[in-house]
């Protein structure tokens, strides 16, 4: 489903990703972790062609993303659900419009859009705020709208960048449960996070980045915290 082969990314001479190689199979649930600035978001942005790699090959869903013509990028992105680290909600649109904006232009009737949005927003406990604007929502509520938008269209691939950073523990676990359900139904899920508790609780494969390099390709769940805590987070 997703394959990185010796991928590097450079910004004005700064290498933020170096020699990244990993694979995620269809339906797999994969975590991406690493300290702040390690390159997690950059790696994700390469997948949906928001950036082009400086070196290497990226295959997503059988397509070579690195050499993809611009005209095919929108369709690529529509096949995915993406939760951005900074949410990227349309500022002057209601929650409902945010969640179903693209479907509207694919000709999905209003009633169906509404029904789908309602169902998805229920999953993140925001079905009662469909008419609210993003600026009228709390940080965590915005994050959940972003998640609902990513989920609403049953994507084959779900990319979530720090999807629980502004959620309390209870909601964070709910969201993780949700993502696991989605992956069970066949969607490949890739979640970037630095919440080690989440990773541990979920017990899934994990790719760890540090300063642009993959330092741990596979960390099974339920390992003792020290196994991931290379940089020595103080444990509670």
């Amino acid at each position, binding site marked *: 489903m997703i394959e990185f082969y010796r991928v590097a990314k450079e910004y004005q001479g700064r290498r933020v990703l170096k020699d990244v190689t990993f694979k995620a199979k269809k339906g797999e649930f994969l975590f991406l972790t690493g300290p702040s600035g390690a390159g997690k978001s950059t790696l994700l942005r390469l997948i949906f062609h928001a950036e082009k790699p400086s070196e290497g090959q990226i295959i997503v869903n059988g397509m070579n993303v690195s050499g993809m013509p611009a005209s095919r990028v929108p369709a690529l*992105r529509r096949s995915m659900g993406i939760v951005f680290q900074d949410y990227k909600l349309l500022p002057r649109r209601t929650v409902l419009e945010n969640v179903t904006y693209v479907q509207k232009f694919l000709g999905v009737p209003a009633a169906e859009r509404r029904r789908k949005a309602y169902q998805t927003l229920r999953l993140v406990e925001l079905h009662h705020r469909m008419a609210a604007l993003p600026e009228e929502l709390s940080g965590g509520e915005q994050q959940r709208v972003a998640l609902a938008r990513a989920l609403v269209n049953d994507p084959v691939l779900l990319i979530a960048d720090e999807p629980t950073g502004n959620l309390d523990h209870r909601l964070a676990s709910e969201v993780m449960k949700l993502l696991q359900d989605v992956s069970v139904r066949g969607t490949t899920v890739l979640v970037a996070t630095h919440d080690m508790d989440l990773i541990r609780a979920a017990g899934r494969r994990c790719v760890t980045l540090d300063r642009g390099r993959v330092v741990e390709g596979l960390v099974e769940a339920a390992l003792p915290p020290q196994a991931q805590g290379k940089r020595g987070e103080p444990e509670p």
Partner: protein
Amino acid sequence: MNRPAALAALVSEAFEGLVRARRMTSLSVVLIAISIGLVGAFFLVAENLRSVVETVRDESTVTVFLKSSATEADRADLERLAQATRLVMKLRRVSPDEARARFSTWWKSLGPAARSLPGNPFPASIEMELEPAAVSSEALPPFLKLLAAHRAAEEVQFDVEWIRRLRGAVALARLTGLVLAALLTLGAAFTIANVVRLTILLHRDEIEILRLVGAPELLIRGPFLLGGLVQGFLGALLALALLWIVTRAVLAWVAATKNALLGVFAVRFLPGSTCLMLIAFGLVAGLLGGILAVRRRNLAG
């Protein structure tokens, strides 16, 4: 993908966008209206001054005042002379009575007095209306000389300097008018393109997001293109409405003023064809503005 539904969504999106950004929309409509209005105002002024220009053409007339001794044969001879050249368009005899009558019409209050004059001080004359090209023709001076030398001619009146000046003025006004019209048209197109571009700049955050969530380019650009078109149309309509109001106001002012000198002008509005042209201009400018503004390079912000 359900195409008609998608199209309907696109159109409704464009209109919703215009309504949501009411202030921005009205602003750009007004800016466009100003641009188109200025072009229209230019045409309006041109339309209303056309009669003056035509007057200037009318006035290239050679008047041969006849001696009181002039006979019918003399007149016929002068007329033959005139018709022999290609310079004269129309001939007209003016008898002393006619001249006096004309004088009376011009000065209505003086009419009875003029009629009661002992004898008629107005000489008979022949008016020769010239072809438009005649004024600058090389054949005119010899012709005038011929007329002046005729035995029945008391005086040949053809105020050349005057006509030269007026013709120059009209030519200059035309030239400036053309330059101005070209500038105005360019300015209007530029304004509209940039207003649409500004609208896009104002929405660059939304555009970035739409791109990131995989919205098709058509959906991203379509509403702006349509919006440009609608704004161009509304701007043109507003411009025409404003011009019409100004025309009415000038008309009212002309009617109310006691200055009889202005009475000679029938203030006219733009002919229908010009109105349609201005609306088409608004539409095309809006569309072009939209196209220019939504080039990928611009949307990338």
